[in-house]
């Protein structure tokens, strides 16, 4: 359709008029309704998480009635803030109504976002956040992944032992938030000794190699606290021998299946799967559409997405294509082990199935369900993450999902 329009504009006014007349004749419903011009702006693509998050938005934009109301364009600008600034600039110049985006930096994009807001563009950020106050941040970051998972590990270890920290990308604000939260817990326990700390770039293979290196120096490790890429840590342990240790990590399908595997449990694997859900993008998109269509009155703010939290005994394989009856992992072979399971949310995103996350296709027969009126949960302020000059609450690292069982 967009190409069609461009062509028409090029050919000239007469044919443009003809085209208008034609589209009016074909579909009366779409002719008098203005389509919302929405951009999906990704910084980089190349891992399952990013493509799932993008596919969820594409699937929702193609689900009735949004399929007739939304013109969605995807732009992937790369891992460089400069490129995303340029991408935003051209979207603003193209008079976008809304931009739903994974921002690569929490601060570098602020100026261009402000410019867009002044031009009337709505910015909805998912997962990663920006400190520009005119943008909406929809993120789980403030929900306490670091401290809760750290406490879970401490509980499993009985308050003492040697541990590895498998971190994300060096210098990234998300990695820092998670690690700060975790260290706030670990420091309370003098028996917990961090013997190795390495950056694994949220990638399975890097995690596997970095964990293998750390294991060479510390074969007697008792537990691993990992961010995304955790499946690589299990593989490194298995490469080394039979012993597995308690560990916490994010939401990869491989990790959840391993947690539920009785043989692995016998070899010492215990822990919890929590962390970043790709479903945030879908929630952000639905909120944005409700704001754009005037169904919801929402000022720009920081909105918290609930932290997924699946201990080993709550892992439940799905039988079909959707998350039914509280299942939360797919059987082996249905999806790759690096697939991030947290794509669905029965209350926020009932429109989606596995096909939506894998291929960006809408679910046949599904229509967009309105979000509950009181759905928005305000996120606490965190300086440098979702606000510029603000103070973090005193109980920033309070535990929400688990209680300390050891002293």
């Amino acid at each position, binding site marked *: 359709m967009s190409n069609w329009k461009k062509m028409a504009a090029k050919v000239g006014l007469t044919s443009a008029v003809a085209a208008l007349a034609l589209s009016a004749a074909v579909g009366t419903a779409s002719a008098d309704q203005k389509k919302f011009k929405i951009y999906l702006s990704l910084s980089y693509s190349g891992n*399952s998480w990013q493509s799932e998050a993008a596919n969820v938005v594409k699937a929702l934009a193609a689900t009735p009635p949004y399929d007739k109301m939304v013109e969605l364009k995807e732009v992937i600008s790369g891992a460089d803030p400069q490129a995303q600034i340029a991408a935003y600039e051209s979207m603003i110049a193209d008079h976008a109504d809304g931009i739903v985006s994974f921002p690569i930096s929490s601060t570098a994009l602020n100026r261009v976002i402000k410019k867009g807001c002044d031009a009337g563009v709505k910015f909805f950020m998912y997962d990663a956040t920006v400190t520009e106050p005119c943008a909406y941040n929809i993120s789980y970051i403030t929900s306490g992944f670091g401290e809760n998972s750290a406490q879970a590990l401490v509980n499993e270890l009985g308050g003492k032992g040697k541990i590895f920290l498998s971190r994300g990308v060096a210098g990234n604000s998300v990695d820092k938030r998670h690690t700060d939260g975790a260290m706030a817990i670990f420091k309370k326990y003098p028996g917990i000794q961090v013997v190795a700390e390495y950056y694994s770039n949220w990638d399975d*293979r890097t995690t*596997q190699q970095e964990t293998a290196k750390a294991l060479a*120096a510390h074969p007697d490790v008792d537990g691993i606290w990992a961010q995304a890429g955790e499946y690589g840590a299990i593989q490194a342990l298995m490469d080394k021998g039979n012993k597995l240790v308690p560990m916490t990590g994010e939401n990869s399908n491989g990790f959840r299946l391993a947690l539920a595997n009785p043989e692995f449990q016998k070899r010492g694997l215990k822990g919890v799967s929590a962390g970043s859900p790709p479903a945030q993008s879908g929630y952000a998109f639905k909120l944005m559409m409700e704001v754009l269509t005037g169904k919801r009155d929402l000022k720009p703010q920081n909105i918290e997405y609930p932290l997924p939290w699946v201990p080993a005994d709550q892992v439940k394989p799905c039988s079909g294509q959707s998350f039914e009856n509280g299942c939360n992992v797919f059987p082996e072979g249905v999806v*790759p082990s690096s697939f991030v399971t947290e794509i669905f949310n029965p209350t926020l995103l009932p429109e989606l199935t596995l096909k939506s996350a894998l291929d960006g296709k809408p679910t046949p027969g599904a229509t967009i369900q309105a979000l509950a009126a009181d759905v928005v949960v305000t996120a606490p302020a965190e300086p440098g993450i979702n606000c510029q000059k603000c103070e973090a609450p005193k109980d920033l690292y309070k535990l929400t999902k688990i209680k300390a069982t050891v002293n």
Partner: protein
Amino acid sequence: MNDLTSKQPLSRSTHGAGSMMDNEKLIAESPDLRTTAKIKRETITAVGVFGLTILLIFLSRFVSPALGGWDQVNTVLVLACFLIVVSFGQGIVILIGGLDLSIPALITLSGVLTASWIGVSGDGSWYLFPLIMVICGGIGAVSGIGIVVLNIPPFIMTMATGIIVASSALGFTGGSPRGGASPLLLGLMKGNVMGIPWIILFILFFCVVGVLIQSRTTFGRRLMAIGSNLNAAVLAGIPTGNYIISAYITSAMSAGFAGFMLVGYANGATLRMGDGYLLSSIAAVVVGGSSILGGRGSFVSTIGGTLLLTTLGLVISALGVPQGWKTVIEGCTILFALLLLREDLISFFSRPKSRK
């Protein structure tokens, strides 16, 4: 293009053809009495790099008591095996004075195709392994043809093919690569025979074959001749174009094979699996004493370079210092190794005794 440029020096040199033949005869007949010939530059570099690696392994005992043993050697060999295979190809391309920037893309392509075409239960489709190798080789051939026929600088040409291949892999997978490793690859990367991992046996075999190809075959020697002096190689009647293209094919196929190994190691493919093997492969080749301008280098020293870099990474990760300092230490150690293996230092050791 090379044939065209070569015509001029060829016609000029015909004048002195007679005296040149005399010279050659003279050189061939006179016995080489210089003492330098006893210690080759390559030998010194290789001994230096391997020596540093072994020293580092012993010193690592002070970093952590668990290090410094056979277990660490084992880990180093397994972690280094990908880099060894990739560096073999990169080394051959650097030997002819080129550079291959398409390596990460080819690793990813091969990994993605292996995981999705062959998949988890795919021993019945073993014939797809050679097919994927042929695809990788074909992409290498495209790079080589662009460099030889269109005279595009190697790093631009390989960068272009790299971008095209990486983007195709992204398009092919739609962002999330499917599938896993076949039992064959899992066996290669994780299996044991009499307590020794298969992969270590394999990589030893690969090293021997690689060394023989690079230093004992006509192919290897002609590549070195091309790298030292292209015009001279043309004069010597070497079909330089074919050799340059086959160097890029070799590099692409090495990268493709490393892709297989990575799929077996990580039991799956990711679109970023090739990242990190571009600069480290160049570093391994250069730390191994090869000239980045071509014409000099041996695979033995390159193997030493990969082992040194991998050991260094392992020891540094065991140091309890912040990430910034780890990278600083790594950079300094590489610089130290390069200084140690400098030309004048080597020529000091291999200086003819008579000059003293």
